[in-house]
């Protein structure tokens, strides 16, 4: 008995257990997930598009696809963590706009781009901290708070710049935003994205902090009692969302060479749609970053392929919406089916009505 306790992994003798360690075999647990379904859908769409849409398989399409979805990809990373805790941040697109305006006005005021960008990042941290403060310290629902800061940050952005646009940026920086790695076809923005992606994957899936995030989403009170700093975790996550949004704003400004108050309006809904499509539960406690990245790319690829096939952009909206609805309804339906099938010992017709 003591032997099995001290070295349970190396013991060769069969452990006397009457139950299985998992309900389903390993291949099912690894392959039959929402994330794999989204990745499979992404692959199917890519293959179909490459074989039927002329010009989809070309490198330039890939390049512009990545350039276009980069802001959504970036913001989706911290947004996933926020949604896994059961919170939401609707103010991200406004922070993109505010950061864009700050870079523009500060640069026009004589600051070099790196300094202006640094200020924008600091403002991003502060904006996220305001969200975090209102949610954790004051104890307000994040949905209401971030609807407020959505209007506030966008309002400050529009207030600072009015309807004018600042388009005078140094070529070096605008070229950098559009440049490619080593003259290939992958845009440079993928490097910071990959770095951030690795950081966030490690943070969410391989650290105690990340386990804490999932635990908060599953049950905030239980998480508190198991020693997780619930409020501190949420606060940090809102700051991360703010600073990554500000970074996306800097990229957005340089990529299009234009700082405007209304830059990236409505981006928050695209980000959230992509995150939810990627298998993250809006109630928190469930979600993985590979699914989210596949979700963002799926929406991007669909849009790009349909544009090339001369389908007008409105159909993309319909598809995004329908996919989003289907993804939640289907998971709800599958869960219901699972419950019905797993219901033990229901032989007679006694009370078989569901729910």
């Amino acid at each position, binding site marked *: 008995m003591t032997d099995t306790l001290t070295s349970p992994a190396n013991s060769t003798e069969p452990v006397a257990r009457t139950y299985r360690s998992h309900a389903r075999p390993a291949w099912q647990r690894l392959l039959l997930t929402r994330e794999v379904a989204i990745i499979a859908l992404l692959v199917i769409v890519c293959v179909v598009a490459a074989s039927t849409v002329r010009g989809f398989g070309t490198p330039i399409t890939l390049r512009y696809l990545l350039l276009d979805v980069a802001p959504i990809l970036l913001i989706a990373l911290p947004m996933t963590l926020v949604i896994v805790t059961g919170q*939401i941040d609707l103010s991200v697109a406004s922070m993109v706009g505010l950061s864009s305006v700050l870079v523009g006005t500060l640069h026009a005021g004589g600051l070099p781009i790196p300094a202006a960008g640094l200020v924008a990042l600091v403002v991003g941290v502060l904006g996220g901290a305001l969200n975090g403060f*209102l949610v954790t310290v*004051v*104890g*307000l*629902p994040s*949905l*209401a*708070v971030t*609807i*407020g*800061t*959505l*209007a*506030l*940050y*966008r*309002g*400050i952005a*529009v*207030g600072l*710049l*009015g*309807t004018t646009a600042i388009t005078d940026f140094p070529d070096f920086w605008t070229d950098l935003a559009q440049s490619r790695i080593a003259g290939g076809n992958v845009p440079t923005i993928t490097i910071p994205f990959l770095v951030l992606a690795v950081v966030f994957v490690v943070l969410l899936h391989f650290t105690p902090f990340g386990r804490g995030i999932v635990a908060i989403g599953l049950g905030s009170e239980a998480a508190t009692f198991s020693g997780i700093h619930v409020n501190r975790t949420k606060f940090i996550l809102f700051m991360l969302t703010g600073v990554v949004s500000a970074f996306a704003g800097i990229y957005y400004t340089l990529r299009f060479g234009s700082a405007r*108050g209304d830059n990236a*309006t*409505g981006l928050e*809904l695209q980000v*959230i*749609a992509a995150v*939810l499509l990627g298998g993250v539960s*809006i*109630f928190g406690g469930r979600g993985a970053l590979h699914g989210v990245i596949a979700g963002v790319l799926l929406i991007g690829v669909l849009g790009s392929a349909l544009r090339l096939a001369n389908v*007008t*952009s*409105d*159909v*993309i*909206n*319909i*598809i*995004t*919406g*329908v*996919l*989003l*609805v289907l993804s*939640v*309804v289907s998971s*709800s*339906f599958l869960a219901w089916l699972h419950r019905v099938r797993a219901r033990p010992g229901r032989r007679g017709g006694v009370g078989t009505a569901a*729910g």
Partner: protein
Amino acid sequence: MTVATPTRPGSRGQGAVGRGIRAVTRARETGILLALVLVVVVATARNPSFLFSPDGFRDLLLTPSILVLAAVGQALVIITRNVDLSVGSVLGLSAYLAGRLFIDLEGIPPILVAVACVLFGAVLGLINGALIAIAKVPALVITLGTLYAYRGINVAWAGSSRINASDLPREFLALGTGQVLGIPILAILALVVLVAAAWYLRNTRSGREFYAIGSDPAAAELYGLRVTRRVIIAFVASGALAGLAGLLYAARYGTISSSAGTGFELQAVGAAVIGGVAIFGGSGTVWGAAIGAVLLLTINRALPVIGVADFWQRAVVGALIIGAIVLDRVLSLRQSRRLAAERDAQTTDAGTAESSSATATRTTSTGERTDD
């Protein structure tokens, strides 16, 4: 269960009038109404024509009317602990439908178009409500999906074409600007809807069930309330009101493009939140939401008068939303602290009697057990 206007359980010996005054001063809506009055007074002091010119007075009532309708629908939905983000898209689709009907069926009476728009909005709301209530999926996700889907249908239908005022019959456009006894028709319509919704929520059994469902959906289900049906009704009402708002949008502005009503959903939610409708359901009134809507759009018009560039309007709105929810939080904390204090006072008053009765019950219960 949270009640719309919190009444003090310990208040003793006051007449009906005193209680009425107390209810008015304690009501969450009073604060927001005072803010509205303040904005109007300050703007009028700066520029008397803000209120005292015929145009100024008309605009004061006319501008918020459409948002009031959407905010009432939104309040109904939020009270049941849901949210409807698709109202902007429903408004746009319904406005375009109105325009198309007038163009394609020449000479169609406006009343038929109105019925069509409201029904169409109700059907779109029914789709939302059925998905949410029957499939038991979060409203935020579903209505975010239909926000995209409805808008996409609108763009696919309209393309880049626009409906202009010249395409619409004159008597229909007159609805948008017309007045009865100096009060705009749109404002009268909005007020009728508002009074009807407020009466329904306050006085009918099914109306009160909205609050019960929003306070605690699981408890409402266990209690035997028809949660599914009520939630669907809330979404159908919200859709129908957004459809009506779309019709009035067409009448008021005359030009309808495929982007009509974009971003309207956040204004509607913002109006409800400013007006004291708790985002997690179970409390708030449509009056509050309506006053919130009026305040939002009146500030919009007052800022240039006061001398602030109207670019700052959205920042003010954001600060206002945050201020409103912080205020709600402070008030509810104070309320629960006072209730706890009163409860403690009662238990210490009745402490001795309670302990003796407790021993009495204990003896009877042991007595029963020995009898068995």
